């Protein structure tokens, strides 16, 4: 299930990111393409092991891991250091599936990539094309979110970035190993959480039924989580 979470970064924070990034040195994105042929991927990236990438990545993660919408959708266990990329006119990333396991050279962190996350750092008006297209079992989803919003989707789904035809699309992306490995299970837990979030303001957080549902939620996590 593809889930969009708005307002993970404020517009001010996005502006700060962009002012640093727009002045930085970018490199060819082919170096992190995994086994994909270079023809599939054409974009630019901040050097993933560079100081700037790490610094922005840290700051991004601070905002993300405290965001209830992201936590509910991903139930994150480990997060890969965020990377930053830019698609200018003619750049694209053809249809692909992400590698199953990713190791980070600097930290030694190795994660199973259950989920992929894209944090949009350009406003949709800044560029044409550049949609994130995610194919799941039912449909093809086109995603182009306001700056500061993120999309989280199963890394097992085929996805692509369609060619940019005007302007530049700047984003951060990274992978998450979830405490809940299986997608169908994570979806059910997400639905339960959504129902609780809907009921709590209506009935009160101390309502007996809301409390019981909270118990069921935590017991499901207890049953299924890998930590």
């Amino acid at each position, binding site marked *: 299930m593809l889930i969009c979470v708005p307002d993970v970064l404020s517009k001010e924070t996005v502006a700060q990111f962009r002012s640093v990034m727009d002045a930085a040195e970018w490199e060819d994105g082919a170096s992190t393409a995994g086994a994909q042929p270079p023809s599939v991927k054409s974009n630019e990236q901040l050097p993933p092991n560079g100081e700037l990438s790490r610094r922005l990545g840290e700051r991004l993660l601070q905002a993300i891991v405290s965001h209830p919408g992201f936590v509910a959708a991903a139930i994150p266990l480990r997060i890969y250091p965020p990377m930053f990329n830019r698609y200018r006119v003619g750049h694209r990333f053809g249809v692909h599936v992400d590698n199953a396991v990713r190791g980070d050279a600097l930290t030694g962190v190795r994660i199973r990539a259950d989920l992929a996350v894209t944090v949009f750092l350009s406003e949709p008006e800044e560029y044409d094309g550049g949609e994130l297209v995610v194919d799941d079992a039912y449909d093809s989803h086109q995603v182009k979110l306001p700056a500061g919003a993120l999309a989280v989707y199963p890394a097992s789904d085929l996805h692509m970035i369609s060619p940019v035809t005007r302007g530049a699309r700047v984003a951060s992306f990274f992978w998450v190993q979830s405490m809940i490995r299986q997608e*169908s*299970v994570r*979806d*059910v837990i997400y*639905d*339960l959480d*959504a*129902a609780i979030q*809907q*009921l709590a303001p*209506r009935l009160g957080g101390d309502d007996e*039924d809301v409390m*019981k*549902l909270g*118990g*069921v939620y935590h*017991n*499901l996590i207890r*049953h299924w989580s890998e930590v």
Partner: protein
Amino acid sequence: MLICIPDVLDARQVAYFRDVMSQTVWEDGRTTAGSQSSLVKNNLQLPQDGAAARELGDLVLDALAACPTFVSAALPLRIFPPLFNRYGAGHDFGLHVDNAIRGVPRTSVRIRTDLSVTLFLADPDEYDGGELVIEDHYGAQEVKLPAGHLVLYPSTSLHLVREVTRGERVASFFWLQSMIRDNVVRSLLFDLDQTIQGLTERLGAGDPACVKLTGVYHNLIRIWAEA
């Protein structure tokens, strides 16, 4: 978890059961006991292939199917044909665990005994002693219910029936294989279902949160059920 369910049979049905049973010849209860439990079992049973046990057993199964709390708590896949027993003064059944697998006589059907059920057919004032004592991780629990009520408990628990010192304790007992093998998971589903029932009464079945929760319940059954 031990669950007591009231009014599975009404007084008129109980009277009919007792009437049929009073006109039947009883046999030694050890005919259906396993090797360990035959050493500690001391009671009478209706012959399991006899007309009385079959007729009354079918009535018990009809009553169970019409009882939503039973279905929600047990999520039955296969139910052993109910048996009937009688403890007169001096009868008891010492501490034992039920056999894990039971074959249904003269069929190829085998049942994994996940849950044990006792349906009380005598009122507590008809006899002294005869409590069903169930040991779980929290300690021993004593059960003596009005006629027509039942208790459902995990077949993994050690249990015994105390010696009857006056009158007669008459009951039906049987086992079932649940669609949900794991006791913890089954209790979680029972909690969720009971909460949804409560919310549906308060908010209406069409309330979006109730609809979402009902989806969560069925999706969990889909993930976990053996059928």
